[in-house]
């Protein structure tokens, strides 16, 4: 680049810079307001929930609780009502009852057959 070009550019730069310093107050005020509006745009931008690290543990705990509740409901089918659950408990109680098992082991069928027959005869004869 020649010295003439350098001189020309320096002069042009000087003129342009001088014109910048002479921008009037109304324009400076408008530009200042525009800048503040642009910055406010960032400040007012709603933050995504995923950008809040403080909420992540609470969100995780809530998600885990919902999963547990869903698993409980899914495993509890419609045929598992309260009454049948009661019968199941009775079965367990009978199986665990020692007296009941002893009665079955010492089963004397002839005695019970005689008792039934005697009862019927006594009933009809009375």
């Amino acid at each position, binding site marked *: 680049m020649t010295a003439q070009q350098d001189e020309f550019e320096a002069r042009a730069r000087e003129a342009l810079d001088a*014109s910048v310093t002479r921008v009037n107050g109304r324009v400076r005020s408008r530009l*200042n307001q525009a800048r*503040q509006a642009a*910055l406010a745009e960032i*400040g007012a931008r709603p933050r995504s929930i995923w950008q809040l690290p403080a909420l992540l543990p609470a969100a995780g705990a809530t998600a885990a609780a919902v999963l547990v509740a869903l698993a409980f409901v899914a495993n509890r089918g419609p045929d598992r009502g309260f009454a049948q659950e009661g019968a199941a408990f009775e079965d367990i109680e009978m199986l665990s009852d020692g007296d009941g098992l002893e009665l079955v082991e010492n089963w004397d069928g002839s005695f019970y057959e005689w008792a039934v027959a005697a009862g019927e005869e006594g009933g009809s004869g009375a």
Partner: protein
Amino acid sequence: MSAFATLAPVYSMPAAPHGDVDLPDASSRARLRALNEFLASVELKAFRIAQITLRHEDDACDVVQDAMLQLARAYAERPAEEWKPLFYRILENRIRDVQRRRMVRNRVIAWLPFRRDAEEDDDLPDPIERAPSPVAGPVKQIQVDETMQALEAALQELPARQRQAFLLRTMEGMDVAETAAAMGCSEGSVKTHYFRAVNALRARLGDFWS
């Protein structure tokens, strides 16, 4: 930096009236401060570039405002060194939009059977509003005015790309790489546009500036 930059710090502004408002942490505050400083450093030059190209003060203010908003909305999270080329690229696009709208409007108006005299009255400058800043004496000011008027007239004669390359390089002081990023072209194209612009301006202003 503009003298007005300190009049209304961004952190003293009222909160937005709706929605959840981000409470800026330290890094966000630092980024806001950096963006504020950047915009304050380019706003006057950007306005002058837009004004030289559009030859209309309000339109120039509008395009600079749009460029600021667009930069803040879309590119605030980008590295600060990318802001300047991005900002001037947005600005150039906005300037081009205004020029296109003007062309369409002029075509439409050319078909109308009447002219809007009232609109022309609105364009008359307010002498108080247009009073320049008192930074130079009257004689010096006249010289600066004449020099600038001649330069602006010569810049108007340049092709858009040459004018853009010249203003970004000379006025904003951007290097070739930054100018290429702002103009969306290669560095070689920037050099060519700039070289041609300087030669054309020298040929036109040589007598005036000698």
